[in-house]
Structure formats: structure tokens, C-alpha cells
């Protein structure tokens, strides 16, 4: 049972330096909770009290999950989730 989650440089402090970790769940939210159980602190970098953080992009396969179901996006075995911090500024 596994979904590969690709982790950007800035979040590898939560994964012992690993650039990809595996997790499971039926939705993105469940997957993130599953990751949090082994990589404490990761959830807080992805989610705030309003949902997915504004300047963190999460992709399911090739699509930004904001265009799918956000945290409720369905995920399944064999999917690949990629996290990329936004490149932005003022």
C-alpha cells in the first residue's frame, strides 16, 4: 500500500533528509496525517487553519490539487504526490 510523496529541500528536515517518503490514505488529508505520524511537524508546514497553505503547492500526479478537491482530493495506491513551495514574492 503506498503513495510516493516527493518532498522539497526545505521540508527534508522532517524526513531525515529523504527526498521521497511513502504514505497511505484515501484522501490527501488522510495521507498527510499518515505522514505526520512518522514525520512529526510536516503537517504543520502543509496545512494551516484554513486548509492547504497558500504558498505551498501540492500536486497529485500532474495536477495542482487546488484544481481537484484540495485536502479532500481522493488518492490511491500508485499515485505520486509532489510538494513544491511556491516561488513568489513582492
Amino acid at each position, binding site marked *: 500500500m503506498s503513495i510516493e510523496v516527493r518532498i522539497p*529541500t526545505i521540508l527534508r528536515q522532517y524526513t531525515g533528509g529523504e527526498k521521497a517518503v511513502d504514505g497511505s490514505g484515501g484522501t490527501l488529508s488522510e495521507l498527510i496525517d499518515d505522514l505526520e505520524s512518522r514525520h512529526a511537524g510536516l503537517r504543520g508546514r502543509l496545512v494551516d487553519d484554513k486548509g492547504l497553505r497558500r504558498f505551498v503547492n501540492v500536486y497529485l500526479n500532474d495536477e495542482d490539487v487546488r484544481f481537484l478537491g484540495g485536502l479532500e482530493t481522493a488518492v490511491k495506491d500508485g499515485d505520486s504526490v509532489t510538494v513544491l513551495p*511556491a*516561488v513568489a514574492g513582492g
Partner: protein
Amino acid sequence: MLEIAQSTYDEIVAHARRDHPDEACGVVAGPVGSGRPERFVPMLNAARSPTFYEFDSTDLLALYREMDDRDEEPVVIYHSHTATEAYPSQTDIALAQEPGAHYVLVSTREPDSVEFRSYRILDGEVTEEEVSVVAALSS
């Protein structure tokens, strides 16, 4: 210190001028760990704003996948300020999430001159660095 080729410097400045008064943005990719800004990649500013920039999220994924395939990383992340100095704003500092990158700021506030400066931004701390523009990157 940031060492950058004249041609790459010129491409960044030309991009900033072209998009003025909106902020221009992009990266210069190079081999992982090399510190060599070799490959100029201008990006669309999805915000199309004179005071904000953001890479389109789908473009961002394509860029990072391409860099991954080529064993590259974003050596330089550049953007322009169109009415203010070439210094990172509070927003720039808060949103800098590539600890290894040289953050290049270009200011196009003056029509006859350009400001081009580079910084490291780590844990909210900004450190300016020297920019060395060379004919070609040392081999």
C-alpha cells in the same frame, strides 16, 4: 558571491525591462551543487502585477521535473522591482523557500540605469553578496 556570465546577466535585465511595469521572474538553473547559473529560464509571472510575482503552479511543477531530469537545481531565482530598490521586500523574505538559491533582484525603476543585486535568504536573514559578471563561467 554570485558569478554569472554577461550573457545571462543581459538576459535577466532584458526580461525585467520587457515586463516592466509588471514584475518579471525566473530562474537560472545549474548542476546540483555546482553554484553555476548556466541555463536561463524566464517564467511567467502568474500574478502579472507591478508589486507581486508568483510562478504559475503548473509551470513550477514542469520546471522542477525538468531540473530533476537534468540533475539541476535553481542556482538563481530572480525577480524585478519596478518602482523600488533592488532589495528583498518583507514579502520576498517571508516567501523565500529555496535555501540554496542566490536571490537576484533587479530594479527597473530608472529608465536609463538598472540595479542588479544578489542575496542569500536563510531563515528570514538576508545577506547581500557580491555579483561578479564574467565573459563566461569558469570551466
